[in-house]
């Protein structure tokens, strides 16, 4: 009896399975197959960008018989979640920092053909976007946007001091010292000197502006220990010793300079345009008093470093074609321009035609697009490499200032010590 009941159960299960598979085949042929596309998107502090993107993705999915699942990564969890996505066996499409994507090209699909199809619609990419997307001629990500990095000023304090916005680093240093008012607890230049990303970007730009570099053009020879880099370090230390940079700057995180600028405790800082975005909504008086400019020029010229983001498709994705169709939709010129208008400067385009939009040439954001235009990739003047990414991500060059300030080392000795650490990275 027991054997018979098991036999009956097996027949029932098999029949049910047949019925279900027949029903699923009744929806139509292969063309009408419903797709599922998983997308990972980096949260923007321009919140409207996030909701706009979600709407774009959902609408596209509805029109294209696709279930679109969007996972928005909070900025603070970016490294963790991006790494998890890259290492996971599944996943389709993600917007990732280009420096993170390009050290994991073994997991990513070749997008060269997709780029060739798309590029015509927006006149190509800015140099930094392109350099951070290609390895040995192969495109592994499609550049999407950048977080522009500019200098912020309290225009009211600058005007009160009878000064003007600086165009060189020397002028900027003078202005920062003049604007420092310890009685009112206001510091001239608020920039962290520790582990935060803003300082990494600031320091890299200052080093280039003084003619220094981390690595030579061959991309392998570490060149940090040079008179030019020493000059760059001394420039910052001069401001610190003069009291223009707060004494606790070594302990700042990436949000401290934002908070202190919005709290009117610092007169100048270098940051992405998130300060503008928040000030406009929370403190309109301060917003009117904010001015920003591209990085002042140093002895070697004007430089910038910006964090750039590109779309990647997993090598083993089952929905690669669906992802590429979605990207074609996203990279429509009008759609790109609309996204950046909604972003209000929080994100800047890496596409030349979007960068030529009026919002960038007129009004507040001209310096933002300028920072993208002059930006150099990690490892410049050499090519972008994994070692360059590791040195930047681990904030090794930032460590010079902890040695000088806390360990009381001579700047030249500190630079030499950090150079050795970087050589170990490049030798692996």
């Amino acid at each position, binding site marked *: 009896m027991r054997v018979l009941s098991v036999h009956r159960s097996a027949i029932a299960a098999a029949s049910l399975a047949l019925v279900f598979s027949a029903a699923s085949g009744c929806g139509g042929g292969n063309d009408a197959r419903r797709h599922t596309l998983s997308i990972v998107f980096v949260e923007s502090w321009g919140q409207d960008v996030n909701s706009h993107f979600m709407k774009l993705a959902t609408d596209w999915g509805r029109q294209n018989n696709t279930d679109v699942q969007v996972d928005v990564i909070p900025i603070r969890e970016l490294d963790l979640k991006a790494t998890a996505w890259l290492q996971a066996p599944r996943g389709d499409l993600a917007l990732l920092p280009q420096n993170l994507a390009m050290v*994991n090209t073994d997991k990513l699909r070749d997008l060269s053909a997709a780029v060739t199809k798309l590029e015509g619609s927006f006149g190509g990419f800015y140099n930094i976007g392109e350099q951070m997307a290609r390895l040995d001629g192969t495109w592994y990500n499609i550049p999407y946007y950048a977080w522009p990095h500019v200098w912020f000023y309290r225009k009211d304090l600058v005007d009160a001091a009878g000064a003007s916005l600086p165009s060189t680093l020397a002028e900027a240093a003078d202005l920062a010292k003049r604007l420092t008012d310890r009685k009112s607890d206001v*510091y001239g230049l608020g920039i962290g000197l520790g582990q935060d990303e803003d300082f990494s970007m600031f320091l890299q730009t200052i080093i280039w502006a003084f003619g220094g570099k981390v690595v030579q053009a061959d991309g392998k020879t570490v060149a940090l220990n040079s008179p030019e880099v020493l000059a760059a370090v001394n420039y910052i230390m001069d401001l610190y010793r003069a009291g223009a940079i707060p004494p606790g700057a070594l*302990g700042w995180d990436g949000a401290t300079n934002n908070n202190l600028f919005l709290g009117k405790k*610092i007169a100048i800082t270098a940051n992405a345009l998130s300060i503008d975005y928040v000030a406009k909504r929370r403190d309109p008086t301060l917003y009117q008093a904010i001015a920003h400019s591209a990085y002042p020029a140093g002895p070697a010229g004007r430089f910038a470093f910006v964090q750039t983001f590109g779309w990647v498709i997993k090598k083993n994705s089952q929905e690669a074609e669906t992802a590429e169709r979605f990207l074609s939709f996203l990279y429509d010129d009008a759609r790109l321009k609309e996204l950046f208008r909604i972003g209000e400067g929080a994100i800047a385009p890496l596409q030349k035609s979007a960068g030529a939009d009026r919002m960038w040439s007129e009004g507040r954001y001209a310096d933002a697009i300028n920072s993208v235009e002059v930006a150099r990739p990690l490892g410049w003047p050499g090519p972008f490499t*994994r070692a360059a990414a590791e040195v930047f991500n681990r904030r090794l060059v930032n460590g010079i200032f902890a040695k000088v300030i806390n360990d009381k080392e001579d700047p030249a000795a500190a630079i030499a010590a950090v150079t050795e650490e970087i050589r170990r990275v490049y030798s692996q």
Partner: protein
Amino acid sequence: MTTTTAAREHQRDRRRSLLLFLLAPGAAFVVAVGFLLALAVWEIWVEPSAHRTSTLSATLRDPDFWWTLERTALFAALVVPLKWALALPLARIIRTAPEKLRWAFILPWVIPPGVATLAWFWLFYDVGGGANLVLAKFGVESRAWLGTPRSAFFICAALNVWREVPLWATAMAPSISGFGGPLEHMAKLDGLSQRERRRLLVRPRLAPLFWALCLLSLIWSIGEFETVWLLTRGGPGNATEFLSVYAFRHAFLSQILGRGAAAYLVALPFVAVSIVAVLTMYSSAVERART
């Protein structure tokens, strides 16, 4: 052999088999790790200046790793005794506090670590932070609390202690409930001094709990990440770069997952020795409490 004895022996055998079954994977893991570490050490012995190395030997060669291990050991060695020192008086306060207010003492433990850490971060901002505002009221110059290695280290330790002491105290409070009870009254009648009563009555009862809490705290302190990362990101310099921060930096920032895992594998023998030492103390404390 009686039926009862046979049944007891059978039960003991089953327990032993179950224990072996549970411990076998762990033992196999330890043997595998030991083998890999031995290979890495051999690799360094044979080619001390090799550039291309396995992640394990790269970690063994990295002077930053040994600095990190030393810092982590110092951190754990500092916070665990501090918790004990503060938990006992707090446990007494909890016992005597009104019942309706006792829940308040556990709050630091209950508050999400991220929220608590951000509050401490704002407290120790160098510009406009709470601590410096208090100092300013007394005419004292502001300090770079999180910008100086020593103060950053001690603030990380203080935060760790602040969060866990309520847990220790709440766990210990019921164990000290017998103080002043009939047993202690009888001991007083027998002429024992307060010191002798503490040594003979209080300590044996608290010792097992103390070592159990020590073990938990040791494991949590060695693995402390969220609070340290939010507070200092391992800085200034590498003053608070503990094991977890080192592993995170290599795994997720350098995108070399193997180096992150290797850091924990290389630290495993040291951590295991500490845990075994604490477990041994715990077992003797339990034995003494029984007698």
